């Protein structure tokens, strides 16, 4: 959790400053969420379409299967009936009865018929009808209570169509009636009892036709069997050749050809196109606005030609006797299936959309924050008093801040994509080229130079090239950072000038303080010269020993040179002159300072000891200024020794190591007040009477201007040591 928080808003980073716009996040979330939802919908639509197509074809296959099963059921049923009928036309009881029609054989036959009716349960009536149309033997199923019909209840059926049709048949032919409703005593049975009458002529042993056996097949049994097949595939219809329903969409649609009040209930009326299709083809598929209908014509009697008994008990007109089985699948079933699928899909899709919106929200937040962050960074980068740019590996500008444009007076479009050579100009580019090469080699470089702006101005700038590496470590380009240090440089130059002026003033002040000493010192050779020359004159006027005059003249010459040397030294020390950096021998400086202050030291009974290192390497610097430093330090030591009653000695020491050259000025005087500490280098802080407190300050400024250090320490054995170090001049 802590990790997550720190990831979301890292502490102490610019993230804290970034203000995200809630409104923009909401808008972006809606937009992104919508886009995601639309994209997500595509596979769902495709899947839905495929799935509903699949459903349809499955249902169609099911329809086809049901039709095949139905056809099979019909054939099986009809075959069984025909088989029974063939048996009934030839079995012993009928033959006995026909040979001797009496009470006994009649009863036997009736029992046989009763047995059949009760065993098979598919025959409503089993009858033997004589050629006169009168029923001779009859067994009724009687809805499950089979009975033999008594003689007095036997009816005359000579006017019924099946009787007449069968009379025309020869033995071995079978008559099958259309399926219709049973009519008993001239009226349709209630409830309606679908029935098919099968009739076969029976002949006696002499081949003489004596009557016919009639089976009333209970159509309801076929209907039940077919109904059992109904399921997903839809409602099963059974149509006769005229297009009336034997099994219909509803019971009310059935039996239109039997029941006068339903005479209009036929397919041709209800769905003429389907009817046309059925008349034209034996099987097919019909799609209407409300349903899918698969149909196939079946010939219930078509298969009943037992092998080897081709001419026996063959149904007449088997090829014209047909029904049509149709399976009606209402569109609503399909729609219901699709609806269920759709519900499931919607649920999943809804969840996904919800998730998509969450993702969109997170994305919107991140995008918005990144944008805000970029704005903050851009604002900062634009307003930094610094030129910032990014240059790619081909040295083309890819980014720059406003300061960059302002400096060169260019529009963003005039910088972007330009090469450094084009923008900087040839001379400036050549100057920067080695650094560019370094940066592109993956090295961060910083250098100083002067750069021309859009106008005539020149600026002192510090330029940094910071290489930008790809995660693979390849240099893709580099950041350019240009810092205008003109003001700092100018200030530095001013400080430096001020320091030099101050140093000069200080030197003059020193000279002023030393005026007495200088005069005193220069008086020595002058006095000597005066006395030598006076002595010479006297000798020349008188008659003394003239041999000494040559020696004296030589002494005069030496002393004149000595005076000249003093003057030269003083003038050199006090000069203002051009300060320039050149190799400086600090040992020589030590000797010169010792000479300059020798007289003052001697007059104070101070001994100056030189301990100079041999082969001291030179340092880079200004001779006059460095001499001033040594001078100030020795002079400070002299001042400190003023109060010393014991040993008075100043040691000037030089040393060096691999990098630095050291100069030490040690005295044996009383120590600097420890309370002063490092403040002894501050202006106007002085530990000595009458001191201005400038010497050490200026000395430190000079040493710092030479990139060196000046330190003070107390000697363990008493006295003070000032030490400065400067870098050895590079060879």
């Amino acid at each position, binding site marked *: 959790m802590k990790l997550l928080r720190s990831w979301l808003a890292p502490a102490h980073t610019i993230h804290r400053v970034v203000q995200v716009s809630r409104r923009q996040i909401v808008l972006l979330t809606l937009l992104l969420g919508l886009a995601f939802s639309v994209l997500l919908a595509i596979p769902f639509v495709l899947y839905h379409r495929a799935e509903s197509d699949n459903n349809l074809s499955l249902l169609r296959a099911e329809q086809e299967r049901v039709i095949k099963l139905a056809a099979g059921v019909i054939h099986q049923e009809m075959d069984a009936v025909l088989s029974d009928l063939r048996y009934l036309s030839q079995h012993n009881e009928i033959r006995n009865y026909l040979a001797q029609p009496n009470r006994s054989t009649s009863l036997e036959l009736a029992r046989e018929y009763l047995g059949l009716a009760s065993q098979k349960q598919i025959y409503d009536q089993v009858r033997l009808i004589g050629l006169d149309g009168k029923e001779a033997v009859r067994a009724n199923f009687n809805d499950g209570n089979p009975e033999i019909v008594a003689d007095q209840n036997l009816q005359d059926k000579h006017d019924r169509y099946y009787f007449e049709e069968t009379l025309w048949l020869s033995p071995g032919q079978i008559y099958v009636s259309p399926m219709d409703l049973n009519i008993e005593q001239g009226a349709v049975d209630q409830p309606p009892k679908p029935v098919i009458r099968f009739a076969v002529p029976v002949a006696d042993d002499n081949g003489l036709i004596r009557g016919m056996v009639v089976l009333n097949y209970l159509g309801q049994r076929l209907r039940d069997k077919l109904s059992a097949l109904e399921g997903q595939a839809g409602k099963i219809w059974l149509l006769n050749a005229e297009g009336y329903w034997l099994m219909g969409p509803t019971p009310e649609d059935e039996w239109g050809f039997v029941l006068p009040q339903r005479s209009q209930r036929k397919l041709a009326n209800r769905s003429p196109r389907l009817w046309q299709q059925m008349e034209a083809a034996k099987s097919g598929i019909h799609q209407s606005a409300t349903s899918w209908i698969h149909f196939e014509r079946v010939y219930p009697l078509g298969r009943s030609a037992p092998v080897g008994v081709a001419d026996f008990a063959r149904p007449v007109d088997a090829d014209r006797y047909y029904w049509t089985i149709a399976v009606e699948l209402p569109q609503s079933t399909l729609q219901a299936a699709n609806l269920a699928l759709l519900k499931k899909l919607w649920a999943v899709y809804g969840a996904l959309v919800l998730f998509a919106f969450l993702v969109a929200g997170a994305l919107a937040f991140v995008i918005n924050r990144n944008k805000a962050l970029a704005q903050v960074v851009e604002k900062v980068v634009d307003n930094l008093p610094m030129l910032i740019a990014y240059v790619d590996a081909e040295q083309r500008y890819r980014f720059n801040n406003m300061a960059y444009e302002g400096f060169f007076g260019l529009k963003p479009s005039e910088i972007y994509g330009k090469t450094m050579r084009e923008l900087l100009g040839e001379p400036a580019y050549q100057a920067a080229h080695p650094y560019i090469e370094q940066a592109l080699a993956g090295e961060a470089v910083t250098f100083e130079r002067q750069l021309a702006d859009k106008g005539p101005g020149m600026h002192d700038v510090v330029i940094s090239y910071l290489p930008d590496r790809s995660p693979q470590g390849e240099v893709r380009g580099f950041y350019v950072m240009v810092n205008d240090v003109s003001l700092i440089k100018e200030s530095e130059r001013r400080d430096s000038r001020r320091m030099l002026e101050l140093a000069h003033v200080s030197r003059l002040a020193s000279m002023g303080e030393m005026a007495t000493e200088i005069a005193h010192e220069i008086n020595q050779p*002058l006095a000597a*010269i005066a006395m030598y020359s006076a002595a010479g004159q*006297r000798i020349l006027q008188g008659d003394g020993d003239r041999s000494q005059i040559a020696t004296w003249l030589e002494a005069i010459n030496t002393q004149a040179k000595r005076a000249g040397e003093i003057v030269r030294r003083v003038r050199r020390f006090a000069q203002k002159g051009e300060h320039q950096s050149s190799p400086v021998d600090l040992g020589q400086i030590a000797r010169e300072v010792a000479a300059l202050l020798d007289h003052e030291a001697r007059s104070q009974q101070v001994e100056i000891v030189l301990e100079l290192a041999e082969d001291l390497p030179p340092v880079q610097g200004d001779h006059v200024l460095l001499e001033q430093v040594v001078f100030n330090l020795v002079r400070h030591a002299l001042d400190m020794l003023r109060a010393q009653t014991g040993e008075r000695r100043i040691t000037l020491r030089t040393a060096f190591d691999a990098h630095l050259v050291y100069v030490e000025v040690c005295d044996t005087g009383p120590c600097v007040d420890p309370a002063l500490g490092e403040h002894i280098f501050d202006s106007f802080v002085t530990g000595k009477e009458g001191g201005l407190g400038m010497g050490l300050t200026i000395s430190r400024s000079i040493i710092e201007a030479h990139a060196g250090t000046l330190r003070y320490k107390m000697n363990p054995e008493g006295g003070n040591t000032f030490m400065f170090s400067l870098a050895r001049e590079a060879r």
Partner: protein
Amino acid sequence: MKPHEPRVYIVDDDDAVREALGALLGSVCLIYQSFASAEAFLAVASPHMRGCLLLDVRMPGMSGLELQRKLQEQGVALQIVIITGHGDVPMAVRALKAGASDFIEKPFNEQDLLDRIQTCLQDDHHLWNTRQALDEAAARFATLTPRERAVMELIAVGDHTKKIAAQLGIQDRTVDVHRFNIMRKAGVRTLAELLRLWFAAHQATQL
């Protein structure tokens, strides 16, 4: 007490100046002796030295003023000419207060220097003469009896004979006798002479 021969002593740390001074003095036939430091001179200094000391005040080690003080302590009575550098007047004044005879600023006119040396040598001569006289006077007063010394002391403060007699409880005449003896021993004729000699001798003994 046998004084040395008067001469010019030079003490200066600057070789050139020292040698040039020597050349100059030599050219006017003055006898001189050079020392490079105060310590070197002090090593040979004695009360018998006579003449003039040319002393540079500023020297490493012992300074001119310090040497001057040491010499006084040791009773070396040389005429001292202080040589100073330009602007060293305060130091010269201190030297004069401490009993130096003169000072001269560098660079100096050689004649001026020579004149001053001559003066010093004369002063030295005079001093030695006075000193001899005083020494003699002191020797004379040393022969006074205690009673005569007591009377002399009262005379020196200016008392009359009667007052002296009253104070010492003796006769006026006795006082006169003592006075007569004192004047005889001192070898003077007038009271004024006696008093001058007394004070001089008194001063000399105090030195």
